[in-house]
């Protein structure tokens, strides 16, 4: 058996250091410590981002606890606790005591703490404002005891000063961490800071974090000086599916900038520029390397280290002239639309949610992917602007909304055509909605070091607009459905409630016989109506769908009614008296032969394998002559296309062996608390209609 290096150890080894601690001391506002309200948010953010990144790398489902306590002198005590891999004793001082350009600086991929500079900032801020040290308690799986150590910073020498180091037995670790895990990290620090509630608060930051990290469970508790609860929150994971493991990639020539290239040339172990190009870059084959060097008029045997400035510049120019394949995009980890939907629905009570995950694309050598979610209706306030939830690499952006590319993309769309208010067709729209925008990229460009606003980029902007159009169209058709439903409900009110009362009142007032209403009803309605309702049965854990077709025309009608239902490997139709047949994946059809004038036909069926809230609204289509109000005529061409896709999919699946799970030890660490619906649900229908 091969003895594997502990995962935590491996991560730590890859970290490289730079000495800018003194610089930081003078520029703490860059890192979000400029006000007392913001300092606590930044501190929580740095700790939580690190926890989520570490858990993701180690394929652990994160459990994160944040405790904040108000103490005397305008100070806060912050404790964060996770069930991550922990940090090996020898790396603790490095991780917390030096400004690190994290493990990911030279390898390119999507991570939260992109520059790995943050957590040391927390230690430093604590030291600068209170003179206290930060206590770290770390437990790694490979060791039977935990390490506890106090850390202070020697900012001149960019060094951590350790004190009171001790070993903690397993039992005490369990007790102190409050978690029954064999690994984890607890940080305790004190700082001058102020806890505030509201749109820019720790609570909001964690709420947003939970939306884009549906695999994480996050808890917050804020205690006042008298022990009273000031604020609390609990966001339980809604999926046990970890984000896809991201693959590290090398830089792509198209994303190169002068300074980076210069540093890479200086640091490389390669002996010639040709092998430097081949080994240190993505998609540079020997042939491509040769072409680049020809364009740059450089001898392929030149040593990388000694290259003069002009040669570096001609190399950069050559990168853009030679045709190079785009970088691979599997280094990105989108949240994926179904999980965004779940995250949003968990955090915001609404009537309607639509999400779009665009395919990855590339801008200046950097792979990126955009995702958009929109929720509408329900309890959302209808006055005021919609809430914008901005994220970059799963990190909430809470400040500088106006200057952010993600905001600008939203503002550039005319939302009026999708049914939101927007004076002049520009700016943040108004109405009962919230819009989520997530940018995943190996290199998110921010407007400043504070990393709160994404800077302009045409390709990203265009992709965002495409995604926003898509959710906009979804909202539009939802509103159309709602509008139709309201209209038919009005008609039903008219004939069932108002008309009978007009008849009885006028007859009794005049002392005459009451009229027969049925011919009048047919004249008033003169249409076929469809009513649909999905009810959740909590006891049996079933979703019951009921479709009613009313014929208020003067002749008998026949239709095939097709309902969209959340078909997946884990769901099935369990009660369905009318039978019918499968039309395509997620589409079931029933034939209704003769609905007589003035009569009603109903279809009832039940779906098992769902959770509450998974299915709120059934879309109903019809095939046959004469419009059915409240349902749409099925598009046969699209239906045929869907069937073709399905057959193709089946053929593909026969030849592909499902890949083995990459996670090995997560099962013993976390109890899975929900059986979620697989993401295939909706796919068949959503792509089509």
């Amino acid at each position, binding site marked *: 058996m091969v003895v594997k290096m502990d995962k935590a150890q491996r991560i730590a080894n890859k970290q490289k250091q730079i000495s800018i601690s003194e610089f930081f001391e003078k520029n703490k506002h860059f890192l979000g410590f400029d006000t007392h309200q913001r300092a606590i948010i930044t501190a929580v953010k740095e700790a939580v981002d690190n926890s989520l990144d570490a858990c993701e790398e180690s394929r652990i489902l994160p459990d994160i606890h944040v405790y904040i306590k108000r103490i005397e002198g305008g100070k806060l005590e912050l404790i964060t606790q996770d069930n991550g891999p922990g940090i090996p004793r020898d790396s603790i001082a490095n991780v917390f005591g030096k400004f690190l350009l994290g493990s990911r600086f030279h390898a390119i991929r999507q991570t939260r703490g992109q520059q790995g500079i943050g957590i040391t900032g927390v230690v430093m801020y604590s030291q600068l404002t209170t003179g206290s040290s930060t206590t770290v308690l770390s437990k790694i799986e490979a060791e039977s005891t935990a390490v506890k150590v106090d850390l202070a910073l020697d900012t001149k020498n960019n060094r951590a000063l350790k004190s009171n180091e001790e070993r903690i037995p397993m039992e005490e670790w369990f007790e102190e961490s409050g978690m029954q895990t064999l690994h984890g990290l607890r940080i305790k620090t004190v700082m001058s800071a102020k806890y505030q509630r509201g749109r820019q608060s720790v609570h909001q930051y964690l709420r947003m974090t939970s939306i884009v990290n549906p695999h994480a469970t996050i808890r917050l508790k804020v205690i006042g000086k008298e022990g009273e609860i000031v604020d609390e929150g609990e966001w339980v994971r809604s999926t046990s599916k970890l984000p896809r493991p991201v693959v590290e990639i090398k830089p792509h020539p198209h994303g190169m900038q002068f300074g980076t290239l210069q540093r890479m040339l200086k640091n490389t172990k390669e002996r010639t520029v040709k092998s430097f190009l081949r080994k240190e870059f993505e998609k540079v084959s020997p042939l491509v390397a040769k072409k680049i060097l020809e364009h740059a008029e450089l001898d392929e045997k030149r040593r990388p280290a000694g290259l003069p400035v002009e040669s570096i510049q001609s190399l950069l120019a050559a990168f853009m002239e030679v045709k190079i394949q785009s970088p691979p995009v599997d280094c990105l980890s989108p949240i994926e639309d179904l999980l965004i939907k779940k995250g949003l629905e968990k955090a915001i009570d609404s009537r309607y949610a639509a999400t779009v995950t665009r395919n990855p694309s590339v801008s200046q050598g950097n792979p990126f992917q955009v995702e958009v979610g929109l929720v509408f209706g329900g309890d959302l306030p209808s006055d005021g602007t919609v809430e914008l939830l901005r994220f970059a690499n799963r990190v909430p952006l809470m400040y500088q909304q106006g200057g952010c590319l993600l905001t600008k993309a939203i503002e550039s769309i005319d939302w009026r055509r999708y049914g939101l208010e927007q004076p002049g067709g520009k700016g943040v729209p108004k109405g009962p909605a919230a819009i989520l925008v997530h940018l995943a990229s190996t290199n998110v460009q921010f407007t400043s070091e504070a990393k709160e606003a994404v800077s302009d980029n045409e390709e990203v902007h265009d992709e965002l607009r495409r995604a926003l159009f898509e959710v906009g169209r979804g909202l539009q058709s939802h509103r159309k459905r709602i509008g139709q439903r309201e209209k038919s409900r009005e008609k039903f009110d008219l004939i069932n409630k*108002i008309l009978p009362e007009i008849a009885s*009142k006028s007859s009794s007032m005049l002392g005459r016989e009451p009229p027969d209403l049925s011919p009048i009803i047919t004249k008033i309605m003169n249409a076929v109506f469809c009513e649909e309702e999905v009810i959740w049965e909590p006891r049996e854990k079933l979703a019951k769908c009921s479709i009613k077709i009313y014929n208020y025309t003067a002749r008998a009608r026949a239709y095939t009614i097709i309902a969209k239902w959340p078909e997946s490997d884990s769901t099935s139709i369990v009660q369905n008296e009318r039978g019918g047949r499968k039309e395509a994946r997620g589409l079931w059809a029933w034939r209704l032969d003769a609905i007589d004038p003035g009569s009603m036909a109903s279809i009832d069926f039940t779906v098992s394998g769902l959770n509450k809230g998974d299915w709120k609204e059934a879309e109903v289509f019809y095939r046959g002559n004469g419009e059915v109000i409240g349902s749409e005529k099925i598009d046969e061409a699209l239906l045929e296309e869907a069937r073709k896709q399905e057959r193709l999919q089946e053929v593909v699946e026969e030849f592909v062996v499902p890949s083995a799970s990459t996670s090995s030890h997560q099962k013993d660490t976390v109890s899975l608390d929900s059986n979620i619906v697989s993401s295939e649900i909706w796919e068949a229908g959503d792509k089509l209609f």
Partner: protein
Amino acid sequence: MKERTRSKEDTIQALHAVAAEMHDRMMRGEPPRMTLPVRSKKNINFDERLNVYKYGKKKTIRDATSLGSAHQLLRALFVTEFMEEMIEGQKSSTLREMYYISEGWGYGKFGSQNESNNLAEDLEIVTGCLREDFKLRPEEDGARIIGNLTFEEKNRRGEWMRINCRDDVGDSGYGVPYNVESEKLRLLSHDIDFMMAIETGGMFDRLVENGFDESARCGLIHLKGQPARSTRRIMKRMNEEWGLPIVVFTDCDPWSFRIFASIAYGAIKTAHISEYLATPSAIYLGIDSDDIKAYDLPSDELTSRDIEALKAEKSDPRFQNQEWTDQIDLMLELGEKAEQQSLAKYGLDFVTDTYLPEKLRQKLGIHIG
């Protein structure tokens, strides 16, 4: 002039005819409906005989094929039932009370007071009755009058009281009751030459304080904006029974023009009873559009709503004469409007010492002082 009020039997019968139209249609298997004249400026015509504007022949059918109209029909039945009860029980209620009573009518409930007011008017129009016949009264109070004229009003105890509008009232004047018909109010005597109707309270008080009613030998009546039915009716009666000229003194803006039109030609909303309310011989005294320049008055720019209102007036049949076309065009050209009180620019007495005497001489040939 035909008899104004109807007997209670006639009223109930007229109301039942509305219900019968609905019932007859339903017995034939058709959606119930109510037929009404179109109540907009497109459907008012000048009645040569009555000398006022009345509804034309355009009808609108309100039938139960939409929820809104069906609601209206049901409400009409509820209101009919309610009126019958009041007529039988010799009670009356205000329009506002009826609105609140409708709370208990289920689907017949009114969404706003405006809806219930409109429906009461609808029923007046289709039945040819007046709301007084329905035992409904407005809660809006009528005008105030000051001047040397004497009325006799029947008080709550049923006794006739003599009231002189100069000697028997305070500074706020005589309050016009909502019913100014002869069973409630008699016009006894006067010693004035004309009645002046004034749009704003501020100007009314100014004229009272300056003693203009005595110096110009006139009666002053405060319109309180768009005048209530009783205000227009009492002016009509003073004009007909006493032969007094009515002059109207308002702000200079599109809305004031409409106030004058409703006094002189009849209001669009009450065109079914224009002959009871309108005084065709009423004269618009001012402020005229050209006064803004002539008197160099402080003015405000027209708002977009003002401009729209002026444009609408250009296609309103009541303003289709040279005088009004000039007046409206000039205001559009200037792009400005002025308030009555802008005359105070030249001092508090300017209006009574200079402006009104000039205007009265110019438009009526009356010389004061």
